[in-house]
């Protein structure tokens, strides 16, 4: 499944964007050095193929329902890991931009979840291992099935972790995990079966397509482990940087902060209070601005701090009238813009 912008925090999104950006840069370098230019249009057209193939319904025997293809594993098998990864990345970018599937900030997460595991773990370490001594239809079947299932399990585990780190949902880890993994086991099995069927067909009728990819130098294990170590380091550094950067404003990390300390969002809130205090002191005819507390500003800050742990109710509570007014205001502005536009059109 695609991570959505609405479910991630800037830190998680930023870290994953940097990570996937790194893998993409690495893959591009590999593609430029190792693979001939013939592959470029092939990657483009295959991307379009996967896009279209994702919409084919495959009926699942004995269930009455149907499933479809994700295509990550198929791309790795047909194009090799680097070209496969890049193809997946461009499909996901088009999905994010044009179809709102995933999103620009969640793009890094999606590229990682759907591209990295299949192309750089499942393909070289599982698929290649099963097919290391030549291929036959049985080997293709086992290799495709297992690598698809594992690739998707890792991807969905990533989704769980990314969602929880972002802290937009209240789902406990265990529940979310138990919800996601079995669903993706089923999806993975269908994906694996379809992938196996397709790869077997191509191996029978156009074996040179598979041979071409298999011949492309297998990933030397040193390079891939280097890449993974470099990635981990990058994640820690980038993540750390973003967290440090963001900790001055209370985003993202508030999740863990709140869980541990029971307080968060103090800064924004008190900032608002300060401003409002200023506003109030200047405009003395506005005696109080909170439902419950009357009195001095400082006292109020103290009090609000006391009740904060329950929820940032200061913000949510009093926002209703203001929120409605904001929407009315936006609507009115829109109406006016429209009016002006119409008048202009009439004139011209």
């Amino acid at each position, binding site marked *: 499944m695609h991570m959505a912008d609405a479910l991630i925090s800037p830190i998680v999104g930023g870290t994953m964007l940097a990570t996937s950006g790194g893998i993409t840069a690495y893959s591009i370098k590999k593609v430029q050095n190792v693979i001939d230019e013939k592959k470029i249009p092939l990657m483009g057209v295959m*991307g379009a193929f996967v896009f279209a193939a994702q919409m084919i319904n495959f*009926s699942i025997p004995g269930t009455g329902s149907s499933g479809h293809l994700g295509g990550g594993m198929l791309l790795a098998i047909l194009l090799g890991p680097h070209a496969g990864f890049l193809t997946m990345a461009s499909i996901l970018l088009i999905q994010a931009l044009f179809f709102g599937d995933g999103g620009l900030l969640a793009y890094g997460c999606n590229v990682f979840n759907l591209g990295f595991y299949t192309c750089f773990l499942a393909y070289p370490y599982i698929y290649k291992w099963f097919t290391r001594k030549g291929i036959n239809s049985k080997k293709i079947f086992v290799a495709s099935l297992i690598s698809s299932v594992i690739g998707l399990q890792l991807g969905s585990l990533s989704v769980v972790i990314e969602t929880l780190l972002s802290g*937009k949902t209240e789902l406990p880890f265990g*529940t979310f995990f138990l919800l996601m993994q079995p669903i993706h086991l089923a999806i993975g099995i269908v994906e694996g079966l379809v992938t196996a069927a397709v790869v077997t067909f191509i191996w029978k009728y156009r074996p040179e397509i598979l041979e071409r990819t298999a011949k492309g130098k297998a990933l030397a294990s040193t390079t891939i482990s280097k890449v993974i170590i470099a990635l981990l380091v990058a994640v820690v550094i980038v993540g750390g940087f973003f967290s440090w950067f963001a900790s001055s404003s209370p985003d993202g990390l508030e999740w863990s902060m709140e869980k541990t300390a029971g307080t968060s969002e103090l800064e924004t809130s008190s900032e608002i209070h300060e401003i409002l205090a200023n506003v109030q002191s200047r405009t003395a005819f506005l005696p109080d601005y909170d439902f419950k507390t009357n009195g001095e500003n400082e006292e109020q800050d103290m009090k609000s701090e006391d009740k904060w742990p329950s929820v940032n109710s200061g913000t949510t509570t009093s926002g209703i009238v203001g929120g409605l007014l904001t929407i009315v205001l936006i609507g009115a502005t829109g109406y006016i813009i429209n009016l002006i536009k119409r008048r202009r059109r009439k004139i011209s």
Partner: protein
Amino acid sequence: MSTLKNSLYHLRLLDDLGKHNSFIHKVHPLIKLITTVFYLAVVISFERYDVSGLLPLIFYPMFIFLLGELPITPILKRLLIVAPLIIGIGIMNPLFDNSKVLIGNIYISRGWITFLSILIKCGLTVTASILLVATTGINRIAEALRMLKVPKIFVLQLLLTYRYFSVLIEEVSIMIRAYSLRAPGQKGIHRSVWGSFTGILIIRTFDRAQRVYQSMNLRGFRGEYINGYNSKITFKDFLYLMMWCFFFTIVRIYNIPLIIDRIFTGVIN
């Protein structure tokens, strides 16, 4: 079948919209890309209990819709297609967090507030992405990516995928039609032809890629994609960016509805 048609229709619509010539369309693509990313970052940086603070951000898509002269319904329809996935996860919030919060005079489960916050964020982020392409078009987005130093190979490949999407959708729908005419009442492609149905399509795709490569090669392609000149960012573009960034920052720092609210209730009292 219907998803195929819908996707194709949606893509064509966005392609058409991207070629309009409104005020928003004329803004430099890189500026629009940066504005969109900044907007998205601001939207998702709001804490999960904050609903009111998000509301002023609705101003941005409304402004783009109006000045970009875009049709609202088809774009919002896309939102409805994407939303269920997000709602599926968000709806868990009311189940897992039912501590009560006093709002006005009513107690409300905190989970509903976070759910509402996710819903609004979903609406704003999905709309913002689609509005970006609807006012820019793929070619100018490619231009922006090139200016950001995204490697040429990636940009070219992105354009090719975009270009051949409609060709392959067409091919897939013809095959599905031919299949379903001879397999009435089936709910999808039968297991026995999973491999051949998709496999034939892949083999054709490979052959097509081969021809595309030849035709590129005959026109001097040597692995290097050369895009045209990049248009310059003008002061006007810069101003556009600055104004939005200013607006987003203000909205992020100050909870405007809250301020309005307090002033308003203050006035009443």
